[in-house]
């Protein structure tokens, strides 16, 4: 008798998913009678609330900028408030006739953000583009050049202010956060202590108090006649605040990099900064993309707190717009839904973008070979 020969079995594709939508529904929503009952009850409640909301928001809504029409019984949402007040909400107290300037500035800023997020544009000249766009942004907003009338920063407001605060504070906080995170792992005790102290101090206070300090206390310590614009002070406050939180997130990523990576870089002759730049940070940052984006999103929304120091960004501009007009004041809810939609669009875009970034940076972690 001969020894049996080895018969390799040819690889086959995995079987098609047998679950399907109907099977999924049956298993997850109607698995047993309690589940089925809950599905019916909760589903019914959801359906009822949805129809109520849709009827209020669409079918019974009043769309004309006429507050009399909104006061009629049985009328639902009063979207006329947006039609009437949208310029005040979007641009705050910026002089009405010159509102094409913040509008253009906002469009430019959005364009810059989209370009910066696109891989094809990741070149050295992107830095130059930032400098140019930011210069144009400030020139448009502040004026005083090219025959544009001067508009002081305390009259800036609405969406451009929100975008400016969010973009600049994130852009500045990120490098600071990287340095602080590296500093916390430094061999030098002075740097390590300083960075730890910075993070602990900032994390120990609410953003509101940082903003108050930047706005009201900072000038007290400055010599007579020396002032820094409140917008810049607040911007720095948000930046330092966001950087402390971000630094902790990045720290977590740094801790996840095995010591062997650093040793291998050392044996290859890489300096400390080369090791961090080429070996450690690319891996550490890729690991923390979701948490970093979480930080970015919360920073974006935290900019709404600057209202308390009389800077009327989107949220502040809304209350400004409606509180100043007794006729429209009852329709706060519609106003808040409107800006909630704006916030949501930005935050949703950021969260989708973070998924894409994660994919881009974790290619090396996938074991299978991608076929593009």
């Amino acid at each position, binding site marked *: 008798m001969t020894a049996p020969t080895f018969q390799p079995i040819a690889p086959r594709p995995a079987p098609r998913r047998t679950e399907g939508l109907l099977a999924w529904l049956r298993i997850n929503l109607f698995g047993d009678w309690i589940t089925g009952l809950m599905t019916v009850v909760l589903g019914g409640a959801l359906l009822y609330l949805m129809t109520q909301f849709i009827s209020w928001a669409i079918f019974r809504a009043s769309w004309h900028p006429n507050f009399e029409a909104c006061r009629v019984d049985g009328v639902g949402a009063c979207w006329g408030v947006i039609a009437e007040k949208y310029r005040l909400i979007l641009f705050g107290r910026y002089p009405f006739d010159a509102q094409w300037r913040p509008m253009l500035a906002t469009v430019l800023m959005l364009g810059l953000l989209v370009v910066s997020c696109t891989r094809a544009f990741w070149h050295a000249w992107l830095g130059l583009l930032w400098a140019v766009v930011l210069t144009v942004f400030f020139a448009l907003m502040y004026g005083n050049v090219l025959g544009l009338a001067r508009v002081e920063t305390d009259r800036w407001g609405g969406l451009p202010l929100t975008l400016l605060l969010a973009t600049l504070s994130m852009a500045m906080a990120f490098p600071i956060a990287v340095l602080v995170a590296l500093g916390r792992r430094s061999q030098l005790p002075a740097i390590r202590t300083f960075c730890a102290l910075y993070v602990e101090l900032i994390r120990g206070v609410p953003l509101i108090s940082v903003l108050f300090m930047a706005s009201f206390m900072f000038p007290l310590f400055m010599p007579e006649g020396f002032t820094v614009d409140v917008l810049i002070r607040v911007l720095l406050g948000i930046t330092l605040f966001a950087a402390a939180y971000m630094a902790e997130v990045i720290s977590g990523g740094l801790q996840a990099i*095995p010591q*062997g*990576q650093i*040793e*291998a*870089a*050392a*044996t*290859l*002759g*890489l*300096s400390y900064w*080369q090791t961090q730049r*080429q*070996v450690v940070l*690319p*891996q550490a940052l*890729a690991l923390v993309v979701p948490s970093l984006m979480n930080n970015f999103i919360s920073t974006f929304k935290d900019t709404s707190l600057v209202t308390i120091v009389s800077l009327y960004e989107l949220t502040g501009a809304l209350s400004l717009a409606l509180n100043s007009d007794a006729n429209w004041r009852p329709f706060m809810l519609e106003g808040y839904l409107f800006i909630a939609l704006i916030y949501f669009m930005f935050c949703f875009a950021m969260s989708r973008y973070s998924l894409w970034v994660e994919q881009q*940076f974790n*290619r*090396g*972690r*996938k*074991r*299978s*070979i991608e076929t593009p």
Partner: protein
Amino acid sequence: MTQPIIQFDKLNKWYGDSFHVLRDIDLSVAPGERIVICGPSGSGKSTLIRCINRLETHQEGRLFVDGVELTDDARVIDDVRKKVGMVFQQFNLFPHLTVLENLTLSPIWVGKMPKEEAEEKAMIQLARVRIAEQAGKYPLQLSGGQQQRVAIARALCLKPKIMLFDEPTSALDPEMIKEVLDVMIELAAEGITMLCVTHEMGFAKAVADRVIFMDQGQIVEQNNPHDFFSHPKNERSQDFLSKILGH
């Protein structure tokens, strides 16, 4: 007699205050010499070779590499690391870079070599370890044996005078050990100075000029492989060999 390329002179090292990991190490290595270091775990083998490129610092005694004494001076450390290549048990390839980028990282950033030239030279090293066709893949897409060969090629890109191997086959499946050892045997034939911590006694017999046996931070015995394996002099080495060869 030629000047030794590595010279340990009464070297002592402690981890913390109490763990005396290297005790009175005296060792000199001639250029081109191939040394295998073995011994039970915790005996200080890895620490010994990691002192040579200053991944570990010693507290007492002196250590010369290629005529230069190792100190805390950053320039000295940079200089020595250019001459010493190292291969780790866990490969330590950079997972976010392709195989080719792993090899060209140091030539481009440390050696200031143009990218094209660095890639050309890297491909030569990859061909040498028979893995050139994987240049565009990421390390985690390769088998352990392939990864370790890439790690060897990466170390060779610096044209080192000395190669240190820290248990290069211990993390590999048995089927892959041979492909790595074959590459190391070829390297040994080219006259590069090698210090290798390993328990692959077949490799030691095939290429080593000298086998060093360590225990509890000391060099217990050193001899040529034939005499070491057939007539170990010390009872600790006899005991060790009977354990690793006895089955």
